[in-house]
C-alpha cells in the first residue's frame, strides 16, 4: 500500500517560496511590535522605573560622588541604571510568551516551516527596540541632570546594554517556555535578579574604595554583570582601553550567545 504522493498531492495551489530566517524574524518582530505598541502600558511602566531612580535616588548620590571615586555622580550612576534596565526590563519579557503559549500561538507558529531561531529572535528584537528607546530617553533625561559623556562612549555603552538585553530577553523567553507558569517564573526571576542587582554594584560600587568588606568584593568578582556595569561606566568616561571594557564586552557577547542558543533550543523542543 506504500505509494508515493504525486506532485499535485503535495503542491498547494498558491505555489510557494521557502521562508528564510530574516523574513521570518521580521514577520514575528512586526507582529510582536504591533501588539506591544497597542498596549503601551508596559512600555510606560518600564520607562518610569529608571526615571524614578534618576529623579528620586540620583540626588542622594551627588554628595557621595567623591567618596565613591567618581567625578560626576551621573556619569557613574546612569550606566548602572542602563544595565538595570537591560537586565530587569528584558528579564520580564518572557511573561508575555507564557500567555502566548497558553493561547496556542507558540504551537501554531511551531507548526509552520518558520525558522525556530526566528521565533525567538523576532520576539527578542521587540524587547531590544523597547530597551533602546528607554535607554535613549534615560540618557537624554540624564543630560538635564548633569550627565556628561562623549558620543562614542554613549554609543558603546548603549550597545553593550542592548546586547545584554538580547541575552536577558532570550534567557527570559527560554525560562518562560520551560516553566510555562507565571507563578513559577516570577519568584525565579526575582531570586536571580535581586542578587545580580546587589552584587553588580549597579546602585553603589562594590570596591575597597567604597568601603565594602573583602568577602563582598570577592563575591561580586564572580558576577559577570559587575564587569558589564564597569565596562559601561568606563565607556561613558571615554576610557575605552581598560580591562573592564574588554571583560565587559566579552561577558556580554558570551552571555548573549549562550542565551540565544538556549532560547532557540526551547522553541525547537517538543513539549513547548
Amino acid at each position, binding site marked *: 500500500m506504500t505509494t508515493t504522493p504525486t506532485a499535485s498531492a503535495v503542491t498547494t495551489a498558491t505555489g*510557494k517560496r521557502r521562508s528564510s530566517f530574516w523574513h521570518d524574524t521580521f514577520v514575528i518582530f512586526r507582529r510582536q511590535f504591533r501588539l506591544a505598541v497597542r498596549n503601551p502600558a508596559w512600555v510606560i511602566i518600564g520607562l518610569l522605573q529608571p526615571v524614578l531612580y534618576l529623579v528620586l535616588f540620583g540626588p542622594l548620590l551627588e554628595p557621595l560622588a567623591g567618596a565613591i571615586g567618581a567625578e560626576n555622580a551621573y556619569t557613574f550612576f546612569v550606566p548602572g541604571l542602563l544595565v538595570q534596565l537591560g537586565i530587569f526590563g528584558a528579564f520580564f519579557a518572557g511573561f508575555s510568551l507564557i500567555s502566548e503559549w497558553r493561547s496556542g500561538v507558540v*504551537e501554531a507558529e511551531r507548526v509552520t516551516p518558520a525558522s525556530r531561531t526566528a521565533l525567538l529572535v523576532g520576539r527578542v528584537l521587540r524587547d531590544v527596540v523597547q530597551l533602546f528607546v528607554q535607554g535613549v530617553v534615560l540618557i537624554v533625561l540624564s543630560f538635564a541632570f548633569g550627565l556628561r559623556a562623549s558620543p562614542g562612549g554613549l554609543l558603546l555603552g548603549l550597545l553593550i546594554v542592548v546586547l545584554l538585553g538580547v541575552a536577558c530577553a532570550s534567557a527570559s523567553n527560554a525560562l518562560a517556555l520551560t516553566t510555562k507558569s507565571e507563578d513559577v517564573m516570577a519568584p525565579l526571576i526575582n531570586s536571580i535578579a535581586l542578587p545580580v542587582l546587589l552584587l553588580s554594584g549597579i546602585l553603589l560600587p562594590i570596591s575597597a574604595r567604597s568601603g565594602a568588606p573583602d568577602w563582598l568584593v570577592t563575591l561580586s568578582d564572580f558576577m559577570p554583570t559587575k564587569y558589564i556595569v564597569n565596562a559601561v561606566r568606563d565607556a561613558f568616561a571615554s576610557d575605552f582601553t581598560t580591562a573592564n571594557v574588554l571583560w565587559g564586552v566579552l561577558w556580554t557577547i558570551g552571555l548573549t550567545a549562550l542565551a540565544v542558543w538556549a532560547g532557540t533550543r526551547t522553541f525547537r523542543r517538543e513539549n513547548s
Partner: protein
Amino acid sequence: MNRRTDNGTLWPVAARWEDLVAIIEARALARTFTGRKGREKTEVVAVAGVDLSVDEGEIVGFLGPNGAGKTTTLRMLTTLLRPTSGTATVAGFDVARDPVEVRQRIGYVSQSGSTSPEARAGEEVVDHGLLYGISKAQAEARGRELFEQLDLDGLWERQPKAMSGGQRRRLDIAMGLVHDPSLVFLDEPTTGLDPQARANLWEHIADLRDKRGRTVFLTTHYLDEADALCDRILVIDQGMIVASNTPDALKREVSGDLIMLELVDPSRAGDAAERLKAAGSTEPEIDGASVQARVPGAGSVLAGLLRSLDSVGVELASIDVRRPTLDDVFLTVTGRSLREGA
C-alpha cells in the same frame, strides 16, 4: 447518521481504488515519555505502535477516550513531537527527516487555539500565511476568502477576545488553511462548543473535503461527531489502534443490529429464542417476556423471522430493531464505554 448517505452523494468509491494515494502513512509509530517519580525514572508509553494509512480526499476520525494517545499521535504526524520509534510519511515526506517539508504542506488546528486575544483577527491570519512563505497579497486574499467561507464576514478587524467560541474556532481553522494545504489536521475541533456551533462547524469541516477536495484528519472523543463527519474511523485505545473501518462497517462487523422481541406469552420465550437463532442471531438473552439478540443485518432477516415465529404460533406484543451505535463498537473492541471516559 453517516454523512455520505445523509447528503445523498456517495463519495466515488471507484475513483478511490484507482488513484489510491496515501497522504499519511505511519508504521509502528511510537512515543514514550520519560519522567521522574521521586528518584526513579519512569517511562510512560503514550503511543505503543500505531499503523495507519490515510488516502487523499478522506475524512478520517481518530476516536478514543482522553489519554488514549490521540493527541500524541497527532503531534507526531504534524512534526511537533519526534517519534521514539517507527516512521511516518506525511504529504510525501518523512516527519523525522524532513519536518520542514511536511510543515509546508499541512494545516494544523490545535485544541488550544492559535491567535493572541489582543491581536486583530485578519492580521493574525496574514502573518501566519507569511510564515508559510506566501506573499502578503496572497495571504490577505486567501484570508478574506476564508473569512467569507467560514462565516466570519466583517470580523477581519475584530480581536479574538471579542469573538464567540465558535467564531474563534473558525478563525483557528482559517489560520490552519491560509496556505492552502492539501491535508488538514484538526485536534478535537468542537470541544467546548455549544450544540449549534458544533453542527455549524461540522458543515464547514465536511465542506473542506466536499467543496475543496482536502484530506481531513481529525481527533475526537465524541461518537456523534465521528459518525456524522468521517468516512473512516480509527479507534485508538491505550496507545494502539484497535479498529479501523467506515462507521457503518464498524457497527456491522463488530456488533450487528439488535432485535428486541416482546412476547404476549412469556412461556413461549424459549421458542422465540430458538427461531431467532435459526435466523442467524447471537445467543439470545431472555428476560421474562422479552427476548433479544444481535443479527448481522436485521433488514434481510426480519421478514423471515416474523413468518417463522408466526408458523410456530408465537404471538408478539412488539418488535424493535436497534442499529448499533459507535458506543457499542467501542464497548466491544475496548471493553469499556466511551461515555464513561469522556
